[in-house]
């Protein structure tokens, strides 16, 4: 199912926006939209942008967090629970005091890190030019020639080559091409460097600042030599940093943690993170010319009700909650609310595309049909049990929800294993018949087609429901996947059954009543639609050509139904092939003495499980996506993504 969504508007004085975000918005799952874009007709709206006042303090706190010993178990969760009691000032004070204490101790570490960063940035700047063999000191000492290191898009370089390179003032040395960019150095006389700079600037040349010294030492030699020396220095600095880290952590453990506690520091850090996130949410809001803010977004109906109740007594804000069908620029996002049992099958639905808000969620349908069809095609008690247990093991070890699909389909494979009487390929008296027996082939194939026909009818019913939701009444009634289509298809199935069971006369009457008329309605749905809307040009060109095209269209629809139905033969075919492959395994395992070689049986089972399992999974998915989804599902929804806090 798809959660009912509400479109909410929150308004109030702009100086109150932080309080509203912190007190209300951050505590609910709301997908905020950029208000300025949502309300294009409102004049004078501006976005609430600006630097985040908590960014620096939070960055500092995050850096210092690495110096503290690991917090006791549950400290972080406890900090989150206690956060509402710590305000901004208190949190900043905690961080400041800790920073003061650690200031001296960490200054050495900061210095080392600064030197390391200097080496890293110099290496990064020189790396693209490492293949050029020139004396760095020499060109830095040029008096009358100026130069610039940098890169430009290769496309712009082609323009440079075509239109400008013949200019004798410029010398360009190509260093390296990386992706879409070409690195190089251009040289020009000092007297015309301004002009050359503007030429290269117009070609989107991005200059790379190259340092002349790193950590107080002048750079000399070729770029590759400089890079080599800097890398050695970097290795030494990294080792020193590791040592300084250790010393700092010991000091933090001895003094910092004792003075105020790791838990208190975590509280302050968590409070800052919360304040930082709340401030970031401001960018979704917009300010009106008379200093009010407006914030819009989507939330679930239950959240909207709770939010309305909570804000009812707050006279500094106005909250309006509207239905999803209000005419607004955003499409309602989709939040699936699936029963736990069906939830693993959301994986397939998401693979195709989330349902749009006004579509039916097909997850439950996929869960049921996928499981049953897979079970039929992979029917074996033992192999199904292995699949089920393997899925369960993966889920328990890795918490991968998609592994539960293997559990469910494995269970269904076991069930159909009992129906067909197969245990690791060994046959026993099942509840119905054995696929390996020649007499069973027709029955199994016919039942497969019958199941397919039923599934197709259900799929068309879903499409009718979807069309009704979208108020596309013409499609609901006259489309091949609409009411006319389901009557036509149902009648065809009935005719086949009646003819098969010896009532051709009745079949003829059914044909006349329930096949001819719906086919006519489907074939002429466009002209009918035009007539209903009062138009006279119901077809273009000659009547004969129009009729011919209509007949071809009718044939195409009928063929489509036939091919989609016959496609389900593969269900029975795989059931038969599964049994046949196990039959072959046992044939190969029989030795001269008449008994079965257990190694061959085991290996054969493993091979069949792997091959057949993969094939069946893909084939059932194909049936789901093509024969079923193709009839009723578009999947153009956008996911509900509440702002992360």
């Amino acid at each position, binding site marked *: 199912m798809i959660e009912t969504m509400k479109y909410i508007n929150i308004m109030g004085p702009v100086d109150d926006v932080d309080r509203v975000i912190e007190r209300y918005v951050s505590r609910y799952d709301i997908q905020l939209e950029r208000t300025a874009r949502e309300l294009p007709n409102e004049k004078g709206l501006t976005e609430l942008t600006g630097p985040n006042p908590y960014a620096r303090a939070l960055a500092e706190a995050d850096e210092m967090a690495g110096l503290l010993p690991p917090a006791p178990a549950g400290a972080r969760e406890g900090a989150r629970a206690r956060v509402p009691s710590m305000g901004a000032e208190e949190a900043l004070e905690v961080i400041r005091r800790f920073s003061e204490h650690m200031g001296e101790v960490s200054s050495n570490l900061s210095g080392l890190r600064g030197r390391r960063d200097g080496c890293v940035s110099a290496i990064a700047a020189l790396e693209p030019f490492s293949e050029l063999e020139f004396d760095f000191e020499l060109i830095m000492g040029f008096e009358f020639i100026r130069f610039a290191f940098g890169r430009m*898009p290769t*496309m712009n370089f082609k323009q440079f080559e075509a*239109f400008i390179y013949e200019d004798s003032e410029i010398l360009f040395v190509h260093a390296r091409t990386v992706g879409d960019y070409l690195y190089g150095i251009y040289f020009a006389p000092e007297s015309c460097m301004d002009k050359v700079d*503007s030429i290269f600037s117009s*070609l989107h040349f*991005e200059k790379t600042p190259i340092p002349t010294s790193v950590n107080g030492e002048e750079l000399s030699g070729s770029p590759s030599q400089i890079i080599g020396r800097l890398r050695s220095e970097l290795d030494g600095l990294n080792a020193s940093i590791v040592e300084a880290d250790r010393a700092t952590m010991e000091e933090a453990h001895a003094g910092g943690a004792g003075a105020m506690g790791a838990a208190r520091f975590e509280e302050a850090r968590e409070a800052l993170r919360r304040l930082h996130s709340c401030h970031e949410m401001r960018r979704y809001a917009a300010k009106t010319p008379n200093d009010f803010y407006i914030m819009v977004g989507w939330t679930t109906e239950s959240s909207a009700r709770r939010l309305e109740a909570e804000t009812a007594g707050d006279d500094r804000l106005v909250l309006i909650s509207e239905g999803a069908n209000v005419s607004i620029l955003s499409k309602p996002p989709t939040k699936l609310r699936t029963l736990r049992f069906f939830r693993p099958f959301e994986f397939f639905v998401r693979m195709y595309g989330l349902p749009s808000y006004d579509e039916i969620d097909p997850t439950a349908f996929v869960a049921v049909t996928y499981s049953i069809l897979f079970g039929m095609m992979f029917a074996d008690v033992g192999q199904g049990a292995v699949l089920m247990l393997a899925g369960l093991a993966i889920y328990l070890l890795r918490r991968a929800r998609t592994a539960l699909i293997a559990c469910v389909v494995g269970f269904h494979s076991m069930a159909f294993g009992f129906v067909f009487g197969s245990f690791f390929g060994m046959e026993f008296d099942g509840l119905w018949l054995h696929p390996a027996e020649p007499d069973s082939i027709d029955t199994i194939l016919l039942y497969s087609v019958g199941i397919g026909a039923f599934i197709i009818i259900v799929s068309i019913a879903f499409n009718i429901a979807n069309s009704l939701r979208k108020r596309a009444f*013409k499609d609901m009634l006259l489309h091949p996947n609409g009411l006319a289509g389901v009557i036509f298809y149902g009648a065809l199935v009935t005719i086949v059954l009646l003819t098969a069971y010896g009532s051709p006369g009745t079949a003829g009457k059914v044909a006349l009543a329930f096949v001819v008329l719906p086919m006519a309605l489907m074939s002429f749905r466009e002209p009918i639609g035009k007539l209903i809307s009062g138009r006279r040009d119901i077809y*273009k060109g000659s009547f004969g050509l129009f009729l011919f095209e209509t007949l071809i269209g009718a044939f195409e629809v009928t063929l489509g139904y036939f091919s989609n139905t016959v496609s389900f033969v593969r269900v029975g075919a795989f059931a038969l092939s599964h049994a046949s492959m196990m039959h072959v395994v046992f044939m190969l395992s029989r030795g001269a003495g008449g008994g079965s070689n257990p190694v061959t049986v085991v290996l054969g089972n493993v091979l069949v499980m792997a091959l057949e399992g993969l094939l069946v999974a893909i084939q059932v998915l194909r049936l789901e996506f093509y024969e079923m989804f193709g009839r009723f599902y578009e999947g*153009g929804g956008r996911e509900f993504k509440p702002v992360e806090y």
Partner: protein
Amino acid sequence: MTDYGGLNAKIGALSGRLLGPGDYESLIGLRTVPEVVLRLVGFEGYSDLLGGIGQDGIHRGQIEGRLTSLAFRDFNGILTYITDPSLRECVSAFLLRHKVGILKYLIGSVVNGHKVTGGLAEIRAILGKDSVGDLPGLIDSADLAEFRGRLRGTRFASAMAAGAGLPTSDIQTAEAGLDVWHSMTLWKSVGKAPKESRDALAPVVGAEIDMQNIIWLYRLKASFPSAPKGYYSSLVPLGRRLRSGALVAMAETRTLRELREAVAESPYGGLLTDFDRLDRCLLTAMGGIYRDASVGHRGSAAPTVRYLFRRGLEIRNVTSIIECVRYGLGREEMLAHLIC
């Protein structure tokens, strides 16, 4: 050797559905946009995508998107007839202009803050296999830098690389980069096509690039008369009959009048005559060039790409008619906007 017989037969059938002067006349005589849309729905091949949509308040971008995605249904059908990979790539490259048009539209919406609210299905239909990744995310980009970042890893990333370090609102740089990339990609694709198609289409593409360069140069000189070296980032570094030296000489002219004289003396002087309506001159000239290529090289992809061009022209004409009707222009004014 590619068999063009089947392809040309398909093109012949599709060309029969193109709107003719009589069809345009019937549209021009209408008074309101809903009437035009209703009449269009009656034409062959227009009913599917135009039927059932809201006829009131439909705006230009929406109708153009619909029409282009409708045309892409035929284009994709044409591509299924082409089995030679290099020829398929060549013909696909002629469709790039529409995809570039989509990107320009999205760039405009991002930079100007006008949210794209609908037509995602049409955009996806036009872009086809040229994925732009997360399309809703791309549309929701806060600025051009984010837009560029989201295109990383896609085919269009290199087109957007130009000017990546510039202020994020530089829409002109982004659009110029896309146009240049499109022309160069098209040229490269034609170069890899089978010989008969390459011989037919290289002059066509070359002529278009030459005339496009002249038009862009004229506009840049009109807007920025004293920065000739700055023009080159917007020009395609390729040419057929107009070599880079001639183009540089045009860029170095001191006035627009000198430029016009230089153009008049160039191989395209007889085609680019109306400097107030250069786009119209280009389209009219290209119509003739495509026709000559198609007639002279039946055993090549020239008839196919000619159809693509004519279909693109039809989209332009229909969109122009709708806009003219919306603004209540007279018949003569409307006819002036059409290119047949």
